[in-house]
């Protein structure tokens, strides 16, 4: 059990615990903040997996973008002033049982399976390699994603703006 392992367990714990709070906390704002920690934890895991660029992206996009977006959503829809920020839950018990079973099954599969592993050949800095493959091998997908984002942008704007036309 070296440092690497310890760091892994820390991050894993951080991720899972805060994720647990994300899904169980009644206060939606709290949930959002716990999500922040989950995402951090995952970013840490990425670093441990040698995906430094991805970790940075994870923090920038998720924490800097998506999470903020979510918070905005929470605030707009709850009209913070007069509506309880707490949200209810539904049939927790059957869901918990089923998903517990499922989680168990999934986890046991992950663990029991004899994965074929090989020694990694991940380059030390991935940004160069990533950038290269993005504009060579994956250039089409890259472009499509760009368009997708644009569509999403316009779509989101148009969906959200519809009220004014009515």
């Amino acid at each position, binding site marked *: *059990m070296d440092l690497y*392992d310890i760091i892994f367990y820390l991050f*894993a714990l951080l991720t*899972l615990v805060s*994720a*647990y709070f*994300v*899904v169980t906390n009644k206060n939606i704002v709290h*949930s*959002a903040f716990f*999500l922040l920690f989950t995402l951090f934890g*995952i970013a840490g895991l*990425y670093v*441990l*997996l*040698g*995906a430094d*660029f*991805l970790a940075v*992206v*994870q923090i920038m*996009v*998720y924490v800097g973008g*998506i999470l903020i*977006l*979510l918070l905005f*959503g929470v605030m*707009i*829809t709850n009209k913070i002033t007069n509506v309880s920020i707490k*949200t*209810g*839950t*539904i049939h927790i018990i059957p*869901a*918990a049982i089923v*998903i*517990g079973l*499922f*989680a168990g099954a*999934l*986890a046991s599969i*992950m*663990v029991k399976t004899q*994965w*074929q*592993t*090989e020694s*990694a050949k*991940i380059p030390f800095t991935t940004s160069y*390699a*990533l950038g290269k*493959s993005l504009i060579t091998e*994956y250039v089409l997908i890259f472009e499509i*994603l760009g368009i997708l*984002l644009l569509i*999403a*942008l316009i779509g*989101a704007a148009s*969906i*959200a703006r519809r009220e004014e036309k009515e």
Partner: protein
Amino acid sequence: MLQVGLEHFLFVSAILFSLGIYGIVTRKNAVMVLMGVELVLNAANINFVAFSKFGNFGINGQVIALFVIVLAAAEAAIALAIVLNVYKTFVNINVDEINKLRD
């Protein structure tokens, strides 16, 4: 056993995935559902990156993860826009009350 390997990452991912599902299933608030979805997506991402590292797939897994993140961002934007719209229509965003599908 304590030596961190592929399985560990996968295990974390599996739990995270289940938690995400749990969030989707149990929460009333649409934004909370969205958070569950984010968890699920991240669980998947962990798998991609983990396999990428341990499975000798080079950088490819990371590229896919990158794409997933982008998709997640787009998805979040759209979803929130929808949530806003739904809110305007039903004056709440509690998914259990939006059950038009039933009729």
